[in-house]
């Protein structure tokens, strides 16, 4: 399991752990059932506080990514398609919120925003077809 913490990211340490482990699970890098280090072992390895790792694991467990076994550690739960979907939808919402904030500041209206969205979707299609073309 790969967790690399940044001191200057401005993101709290527990959040960084949560994000990295969550991303790894969603991407399939951490297989279902695989064991994660205990909160104490992780704290020892990363040289951070146990409360921090405990919090990261607690939130990951609350969101259904992992299950913790008291005294033994934690393991990855099967990727639930509802779970994955929920996580991804949340990311869509976060992303759109960010875009919306920027749009308001730029004075962009709904039309302008949809135009940009359509442009991006178009670009994705073109990129996907180009990829397909190359692989033939």
């Amino acid at each position, binding site marked *: 399991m790969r967790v690399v913490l940044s001191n200057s990211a401005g993101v709290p340490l527990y959040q960084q752990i949560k994000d990295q482990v969550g991303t790894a699970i969603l991407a399939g890098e951490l297989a279902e059932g695989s064991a994660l280090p205990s909160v104490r072992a992780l*704290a*020892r390895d990363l*040289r951070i*506080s*146990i*409360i921090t790792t405990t919090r990261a694991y607690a939130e990951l467990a609350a969101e259904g990514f992992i299950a913790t076994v008291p*005294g033994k550690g934690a393991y990855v739960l099967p990727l639930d398609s509802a779970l994955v979907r929920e996580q991804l939808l949340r990311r869509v919402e976060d992303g759109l919120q960010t875009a919306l904030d920027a749009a308001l500041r730029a004075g962009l209206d709904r039309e302008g925003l949809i135009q940009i969205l359509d442009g991006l979707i178009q670009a994705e299609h073109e990129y996907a077809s180009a990829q397909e073309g190359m692989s033939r």
Partner: protein
Amino acid sequence: MTGDLAFALRGVGCVVGNGFALRDVSFELPTGYVMGLIGANGAGKTTTIRCLLGMQGIESGEIELLGHRVPGPVALRQDVGVVLDHTYLVGDWRLSEVERTLRPFYDRWDAVRYRQLLEEFGLDLRAKVKDLSRGMGMKLMIAVALSHRARLLVFDEPTSGLDPVARDELVGIIGDFLLDEGHSVLFSTHITADLDRIGDYVTLIHGGRIVRTGSKDEILDAYRVVRGGPDELRDLVGVELIGVKESSSGAQALVRTEEADFLGGGVLVEVPTLEEIAVHIGLSSRKPAAGVPDGRREEFA
């Protein structure tokens, strides 16, 4: 047996011969975590630790250590390891003799572990205690504490005088020690950098009183650091500025988070580091406790 609390102090007050006092000291540590006791020299860290270990009598309040009222049974000390900034052993003893001398007093002395630890720390059994550098001396005392299977490690200013490499090694040693959730650590220091990352709980002590205690996140969340131009901080009303530092280019102080809303937009407000909290609290109300000149090192025993 793992209880809930490694130790607890409740309303502890004590007087030390030269007039220094602890007043209404209360804080506790759940088993399985590391607490940093942070304060300037002379703030009362060593006195607090001596009271906790039963080496110093208290006038008021109560102390609980590993589930027992202090002063507890002498056997309680089987579970406690104490590491100071100096070794408290006879200088002419060789490390092998240290073991022969201390072993009879401990029920659970693990001779194999002692040798393993000495090897891991790079200490030679034939070396004499007086020949050890500060860092090696600290590691020796840790080796002794781990060899008698202490459950609670108490460090009093272990890193003063140590180079950054040795201090970093200590972080690793503590991490290993805490792999067992029945183990706890109390770490008193005036160097906050040691605890920035691995500290679970923090207690701030100043002038013999506890300023604040709680999890590290709670403490960091309880204060904000305020930075502004040289005069900007003076005009603020209704806000208590803690430990103002002024220079020609600006001023800086600590405020409680709940008061930070009154600060207005002209100044920069940020989450502080432990260091900044410690410094500003140390600067605030600069009258030292009676009879203790600034910077005097408290004697341990």
